[in-house]
């Protein structure tokens, strides 16, 4: 293996694109978060000043930022376990040898994942309609009085969570299904010979074998759910009463509506640091439980 010169021709184009349009902007974001970059600086860079950590300090005193943070946390803390639970249940169902046409059902359950988020958000906004939405109609048939899903501050985020679970559960379902299929059958046979019940087989064979996959799915799903944006943008525009403003929605408005680009960069960085910390804790926990 030689051919050093030619190799660079293969990697250089991709590395230049990633370097210029991703790595450089990430460092620039850190730098910008320490400036007062706003609409005046956008017009003339002489209006730009270094302000140290002032953007961060001001954000931490901004009630809407904290509200966006709490809303996002709510979405993650309720949405992720629900989403992963449904994914896991669906994977177990599809893995059952009793199911007929597993391929067909797998495709049906996976379909929402590939749909366009904006398009299906429009559908669900209509499903959630308090007056003539299908959801309230179905609920009225079982005696539940109409709920103003997207118009009531205490129901808007749960409605978005229901929508997100529907949209996303197929993704992790496929990953769990691949994991279930990779567990060697002899392990189950050995457990059966030892007289293990279905539940004990699940507890002592399936779960331990899937543990690494569960950790990975947790990390990726949590990171993904922290990036909530299009759902509130299309379905609620952050309302009602700012109950669905997410961190990224806040960043979008701060940066691209009010052109406070320094402050928006600080928001992006805080979100990244938080996701990073949560990921690190999960990895540490996984290693710790694995060791014991």
């Amino acid at each position, binding site marked *: 293996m*030689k*051919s*050093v010169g*030619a*190799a*660079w*021709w*293969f*990697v250089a*184009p*991709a*590395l230049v*694109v*990633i370097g*210029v349009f*991703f790595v*450089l*902007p*990430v460092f*620039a*974001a850190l730098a910008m978060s320490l400036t007062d970059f706003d609409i005046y600086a956008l017009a003339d860079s002489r209006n730009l000043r270094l302000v140290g950590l002032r953007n961060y300090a001001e954000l931490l005193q901004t009630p809407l930022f904290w509200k966006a943070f709490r809303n996002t946390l709510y979405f993650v803390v309720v949405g992720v376990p629900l989403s992963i639970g449904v994914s896991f249940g669906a994977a177990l*169902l*599809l893995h*059952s040898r009793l*199911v*007929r046409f597993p391929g067909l*059902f797998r*495709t*049906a*359950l*996976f*379909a*929402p994942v*590939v749909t*366009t*988020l*904006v*398009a*299906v958000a*429009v*559908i669900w906004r*209509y499903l959630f309609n308090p007056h*003539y939405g*299908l959801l309230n*109609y179905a609920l009225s048939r079982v005696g539940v009085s109409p709920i103003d899903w997207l118009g009531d501050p205490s129901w808007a985020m749960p409605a978005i969570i229901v929508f997100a679970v529907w949209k996303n559960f*197929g993704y992790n379902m496929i*990953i769990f299904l691949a994991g279930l299929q990779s567990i060697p059958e002899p392990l189950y046979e050995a457990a059966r010979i030892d007289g293990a019940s279905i539940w004990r087989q699940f507890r002592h064979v399936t779960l331990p074998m899937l543990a690494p996959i569960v950790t*990975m799915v947790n990390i*990726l799903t949590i*990171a993904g759910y*922290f*990036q909530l944006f299009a759902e509130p*943008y299309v379905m609620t525009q952050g309302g009602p009463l700012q109950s669905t403003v997410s961190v990224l929605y806040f960043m*979008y408005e701060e*940066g*691209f509506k009010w052109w406070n680009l320094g402050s928006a*960069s600080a928001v*992006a960085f805080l*979100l990244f640091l938080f996701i*990073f910390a949560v990921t690190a804790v999960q990895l540490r926990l996984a290693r710790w439980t694995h060791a014991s």
Partner: protein
Amino acid sequence: MPGLAKLFVNGVVLGVATITVAPLVWMLSVSLMSPGEASTFPPPLVPGRPTLDNYRGLFARAGMGGYLVNSVVLTTAVTLGSLLFNVAAGYAFAKLRFAGRDRIFKVLLGALVIPSQVAMVPLFLLLKHLGLVNTYGGIVVPALASIFGIFVVRQYALSIPDELLEAARIDGAGEFRIFRSIIVPVLRPIVVTLAVFTSLGAWNDFMWPLIVLSDMDLYTLPVALASLSREHVQDNELMMAGAVLTTLPVLLVFLVLQRYYIRGLTLGSLRE
């Protein structure tokens, strides 16, 4: 008893699948209703007299034809361009030796944890300086390479035997010739997988086109649909037709090529 269990499991699966697919089927049904028909209680499940009027309205009044063209052009450009860049780089990281190769690759893998939104504000300013804001270029150029794409190709290319390359070199073939006539055919399955992944991602992308494209003439379907849905809150039938137009192409691509798509999913999930 086994018969009963079988009935139960299949019943549950059928129920879950019905609930999952129902919103999509309903979207299609409502898109064929005449204006106002869907805004009644109880909500009608099927159109009284199916009509394509909403689709006609989308193209005639809402300019959907132009947005459709934008989406098709951008998706094609992003997919073809990024395939070229990522496949070449992925192959080189797997099979060619160059200074700092493994170190660079480790750095790239580490960078995967950074959400793309962190880069968005400075990227917008950079593209503004380059004159690419509010152009197709603002969407295509930053998307020409992706760490995920390089990674997926590299993992697959690692299995190419070195003897194959050595034999071609002894025969006097240049590196680019080897790439074109030996490597690309061997990598075909992963190239298809990556193509499906990239094109669906580009088609569905929302936040970045929303930021970069301010001119309505340049809107992609998701951006246009989001903007329309803010104006036409009451026109459910029209909105559903727009949703069908936006999401049907990706659903069809997925149905035809799902074998490749699902492989990419399980490949991508092994990125530890």
